[in-house]
């Protein structure tokens, strides 16, 4: 029992450390951007950040975990869990190609220039999303400990931060950019900006709906420490949306010089 509790507190602690490292790297990113805006350095930092999220928040290693003796019983929860995990990750791989394609479009059309955007707002929404990932991880960890109340609190904070990100992008950043002359139909840069942020915001929105569903179901007494696949799925999906932003943020706000 004590060793179990130890590992639980460990993962809460791990979540905090991961968040601090990610926040630090984001600061480093910003610093690189205002000093030399090197494509190579910024891409490297983005990949490191994404790798950290994929490993410590999305727990990709769970895909390769050895299964117990019930693995061949296709009606067992353990088998279904492992199968669902694989399915979800394949979906994420597929979706990643969509966002990869958008990045290709961005670099093909804009090269090493970037649109004129509100840096403070950009950093603000990025921070909100990063913080939401921290709380999402905390929510999942608490559910794995069987703490349903703690889960609901953390998941609700995640939802609010995610909502803040969504509203910040769509209802503050978009009108701002349009006011500054960056319109969807005015230039390829505008088109790319609204398409990338829009497609990402759409995924945030679906993630928010998913979060709303699991919070509601948790309040009605669903999920337990052992069986909470929906929570895990929502968590992994939410972190994936964060990973996408880890690449989109530098691609839109930091890399390259300001375009005309």
């Amino acid at each position, binding site marked *: 029992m004590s060793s179990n509790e130890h590992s639980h507190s460990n993962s809460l602690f791990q979540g905090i450390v991961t968040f601090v490292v990610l926040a630090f790297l984001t600061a480093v990113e910003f610093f690189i951007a205002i000093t030399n805006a090197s494509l190579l350095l910024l891409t490297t930092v983005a990949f490191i950040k994404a790798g950290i999220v994929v490993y410590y928040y999305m727990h990709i290693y769970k895909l390769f975990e050895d299964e117990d003796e019930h693995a061949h019983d*296709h009606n067992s929860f353990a088998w279904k869990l492992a199968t669902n995990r694989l*399915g979800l990750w394949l979906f994420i791989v*597929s979706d990643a190609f969509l966002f990869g394609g958008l990045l*290709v*479009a961005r670099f093909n059309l804009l090269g090493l220039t970037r649109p004129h955007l509100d840096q403070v707002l950009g950093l603000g929404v990025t921070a909100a999303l990063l913080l939401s990932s921290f709380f999402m991880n905390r929510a999942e960890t608490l559910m794995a400990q069987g703490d349903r109340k703690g889960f609901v609190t953390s998941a609700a904070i995640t939802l609010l931060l995610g909502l803040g990100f969504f509203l910040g992008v769509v209802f503050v950043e978009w009108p701002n950019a349009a006011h500054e002359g960056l319109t969807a139909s005015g230039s*390829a840069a505008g*088109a790319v900006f609204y398409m990338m942020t829009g497609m990402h915001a759409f995924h945030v929105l679906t993630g928010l709906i998913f979060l709303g569903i699991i919070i509601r179901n948790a309040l*009605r007494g669903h999920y337990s420490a052992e069986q909470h696949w929906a929570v895990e799925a929502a968590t992994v999906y939410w972190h994936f949306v964060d990973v996408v932003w880890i690449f989109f943020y530098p691609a839109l706000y930091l890399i390259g010089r300001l375009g005309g």
Partner: protein
Amino acid sequence: MKNSSSRGFITSLLFLVGGLVAGLLLGVILHALTTGKFSANYFTDVPSWMLGFLVGALAFFYGLLGYNGVVRGLVWQVVGTLSGAAFVTLVRWILDTVGGGEYTLFDLRNYGLSEPAWVFGGLVGALSFMAGVGAVGDWFKWAKGDETHDHHPEEPTWRTYFGVSLDHKVIGIQYTMTSLLMLSVGGLFALIFRTELALRLKPDGPSMDIISLNLYNSLMSLHGMVMIVSILLGIAGVINYLVPLLIGAKDMAFPRMNAFSYWVTIPAAVLLLGSLGFGGFDTGWTGYPPLATRAPLGMQMFYLGVWVAGWSSILGALNLITTVLRMRAKGMTAFKMPIFVWASLATSLISLTATQMIGLAFQLSMFQRLFGMPFFDVAKGGNPILFQHLFWFYSHPVVYVFVLPGLGVISELLPVFVRKPLFGYKWVAMSSIGIALVGFLVWAHHMFTSGMNEYLRVPFMYATLLVAVPTGVKFFSWVATLWQGKITREMPTPFLFLLGGIVVFLLGGLTGPPNATVATDLHLHDTYFIVGHFHDTMFGGYIFPFFAALYYWFPKATGKRLNETLGKWHFWLMTPSFLILTLGMMRIGLLGMRRRIADFDPTLGFDAWHVILTISAFGIALAVLIFFFNIYKTLKSSEKATGNIWDSRSPEWQVPSPMPAYNYEKEFEVVGEPYDYGLPGSTYVKM
């Protein structure tokens, strides 16, 4: 039961005719209302006819099924489309009125509503279909926190096939029948525009004899995409039916997603064909901007249809990969999997990932039309070449999606008919994966003449030529497997189709390198040589093996064997017709016949050739009709074939046909190599 269903069928045919006439009249009346006058010419309107076909199909299925399954889906799609369109119209009207402008609610000359209204309506309609047909209900229950019951397979009746079923065998057959339907539609389109090419009723000047230029372009463009969808459905059908049987699984890993993947193709097909009713489009199946940005509204319906169909590919591939990785029978290690399973895996890797790119390319072009976002508008910093890169990043690898399962079928069945082990099993297994991976690195060979950066040409040329290596491995294996094989004199029909596939795919393969080589491609690009080449690869890699698979596994699915005589007529009519068709295409292509054009200069001297090609095309159509007649005749006959009629070692033939609803009563165990035919004492599976 039998009587009532057949009476239902005749009544339904009457419903079909009635619906067609009613829809056509409705279209004519709408046209008369919009123009304020009436003309007899309105009876030849394509949109009115499309409306007629839609209402006719609805009435037919209603007569057959009542308000159930696919009928409810289609009704919901129509209602959803109109509501979505009305919603956008209303919102725009409110916004415009508040802003002080005057918004025209109905622009009657332009299909009544604006383009954004129809596009949004089309999307809502597709989603409504899914809700109406009942393919998403369980997911909503899960979201509400309710439990759903796992399905229990039952013996299907004919009605089962027109509604949502979670059984992979039912879904496999649904896919296959839909694929054959789309194949017929796409083929019909080809026959129409081929007839136009063969006719020259006015001796000089441009000669459009039976259809307009717009309809020619639309049919030619749709022929491409309808056939592609048909092929995707066909491979999904064979994979869905077979892979769980081959690996000893009860079903696919995610049965509900499997049903979703099938049913989403129906609204997609409706949208795709519906593009004809919205003015068609003239870009060819590639949908390139900038022409696409100026095409009629049909362009958007085409984009949307393909976009929706993409979901089927992606989710189907996800399902298949998970199934193969998680649900293999005991003892079936990677290198004891049947080759067809390897091929399905390779094909799914491509579908899973690359499909996103065509979706994105089409979405960007849709958004350019809808919101004026200038992705491909050079004047505003856009780049039309970007579309081609995104498009071909999917559309080249997808040709391997089409052929890999077919080549898998050839490798799978050849040893059965020559009673010899498959030569070089491991190499053949890895060659599928190899083709899939190399396939990702070759897309720009479609763009040698596009104006892309010139330094890209040579690397893509070599990458393309590299594809010949894993493909060569497959040919080497087939030839070595055939070598000294014990081929029986009567040559069963599936075996004939395998051999036909090998020969035709060889032709397609050998005509590939001239297109891959920059120097020759600059001459061959956009000529009938290309058209001949890819029809060879598609027929050799898909159509022939697909028919082989249908003849071979038909008894497994139905317990009845397709008629051999008719099968041989099918083969011996289709193969020479097809060879004349494609070799003729290549010949006139080399001499300068451009592809995609509706008419050509009579002084080129291709008139006679086009007549020959058109006759050959009708020969293929006749052969396929013989096949349909064969299915009808076999299903009506009472002769049974329930045993292991091909003397196969594969597990699905060790149980009686048709396949029991539960697949295998007890799980089998793999104890040997899959293709050790003719080796005494060897076994593959222990039942």
